[in-house]
């Protein structure tokens, strides 16, 4: 296997252009193009995962009003808001480059290299399953992948700056939007290089240089700056139109009514526990959950880690996931028990009502 990889920086682009490049380069990788590291930047974009639904994930009216472009990724995972404050990194690579065919192991290995990149910037980053890169429990980047045959695309973001309020408006998340509490709560769950490093915050170009070095070392490769091939440009031109079209963006759209908000609040002996969640009622999955309250828990990040463990989870697996979470780590709670948390989660699920009163996106 060749050590020589191509390095491409495609600069600041629209949602449809970035998605079209993902698709063109993955297809090209399958056709035998060299392994490639691509850096990308984002004009304001709301990007849903391949299997997600715009109506369920995004406030379409807000995005249209604000000129935020919408597209659907070819990769998995959840909806994102991206703008000029983030960089994206992507590997297009033959899967036989890795010693394993286990997809979770490959993701973990690639994320581990991204974590090393952040650490060399002076940020105490770590990988949190299933796909977050976090600092002290706060997400500083998300990742996801796609494959076709032996060609893999694995991508991630790094938040240099981030507009939390704007994200809360763009994404349909189970919080009372734009209340001070919701903004404070989101800020407890997300961080940025600027929040970590203040005046030492690197430029986008410096972050890219550090990540290029991390991938060079982590994969044992040589990076050679390059450009798109003629064949890739042709594919890109074709997909740029398709990836911006409603046919692509809304292909997997599903009724807003399939997603319900669940909430419950309970005074336990350990304090007040409040759960807000979104539930996919058709697939019987917990999409996203926020757990807040005035209970004592140490380390504080444990509750955000628990939220991450519960994200996108079959409802039937909630109890075993909570139990396994607390068995697997040293968490100190005062009077509050894992059983209390399970009780409030189940109370929230019993509260589920379809959201008929909310406007449907399309």
């Amino acid at each position, binding site marked *: 296997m060749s050590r020589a990889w191509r390095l491409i920086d495609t600069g600041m682009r629209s949602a449809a252009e970035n998605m079209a490049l993902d698709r063109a380069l993955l297809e090209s990788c399958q056709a035998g193009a060299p392994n490639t590291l691509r850096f990308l930047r984002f004009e304001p974009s709301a990007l849903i995962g391949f299997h997600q639904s715009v109506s369920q994930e995004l406030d379409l009216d807000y995005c249209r009003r604000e000129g935020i472009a919408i597209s659907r990724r070819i990769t998995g995972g959840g909806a994102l808001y991206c703008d000029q404050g983030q960089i994206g990194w992507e590997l297009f690579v033959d899967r036989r480059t890795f010693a394993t065919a286990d997809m979770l192991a490959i993701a973990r290995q690639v994320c581990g290299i991204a974590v090393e990149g952040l650490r060399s910037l002076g940020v105490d980053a770590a990988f949190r399953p299933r796909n977050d890169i976090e600092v002290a429990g706060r997400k500083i980047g998300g990742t996801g*992948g796609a494959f076709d045959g032996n060609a893999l695309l694995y991508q991630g973001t790094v938040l240099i700056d981030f507009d939390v309020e704007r994200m809360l408006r763009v994404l349909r998340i189970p919080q009372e939007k734009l209340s001070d509490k919701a903004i404070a709560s989101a800020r407890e769950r997300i961080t940025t290089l600027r929040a970590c490093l203040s005046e030492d915050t690197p430029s986008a170009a410096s972050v890219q240089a550090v990540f290029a070095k991390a991938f060079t070392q982590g994969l044992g490769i040589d990076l050679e700056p390059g450009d798109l091939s003629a064949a890739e440009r042709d594919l890109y031109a074709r997909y740029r139109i398709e990836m911006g079209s409603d046919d692509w963006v809304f292909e*997997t759209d599903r009724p807003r009514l399939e997603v319900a908000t669940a909430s419950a609040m309970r005074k336990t002996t350990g304090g007040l526990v409040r759960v807000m969640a979104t539930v996919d009622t058709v697939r019987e999955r917990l999409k996203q959950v926020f757990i807040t309250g005035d209970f004592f828990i140490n380390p504080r990040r444990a509750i955000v880690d628990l939220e991450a463990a519960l994200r996108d989870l079959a409802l039937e697996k909630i109890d075993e996931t909570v139990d396994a979470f607390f068995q697997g780590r040293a968490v100190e709670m005062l009077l509050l028990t894992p059983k209390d948390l399970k009780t409030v989660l189940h109370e929230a699920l019993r509260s589920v009502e379809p959201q008929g009163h909310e406007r449907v996106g399309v």
Partner: protein
Amino acid sequence: MASVRGCNIPEDLSYNVDNNVWARREADGTVTVGLTAYACSLAGEIVAYTPKKAGKDIAKDKSCATVESGKWVGPVKTPVTGSVVAINDAVASKPGLINKDPYGEGWVVKMKPSDWDGESKSLKAGGDAVSAFEAKMDSEGFKGC
């Protein structure tokens, strides 16, 4: 039922080993297509399933459905050319069924094949399939299901 490194590989099915998919000719002439237990083990829990629409014509080794697991999205490649005659509603609402019962309730699509007799010759069955999966698992550093 044959087992390779703990992964069930039923000997009565026809496999495209590279694409990690199986096909079964049914009495009515249709072909049921699914992912192997090995593919499921590599993927982890499957959380989303988008099949091609019924009536769609698909060439051999092209995608008849897209699935997602652990944030990875990828195609299920049909081992034979044909048109989709049925998609699996049970899997649509519970994609994890593919992992639970990859050769039964977790089937991916049913196809009306255009040339089963011709194309099935290139698929592997029985002991040939078992040894091909053994070699594949070896080259992919796979420990076991």
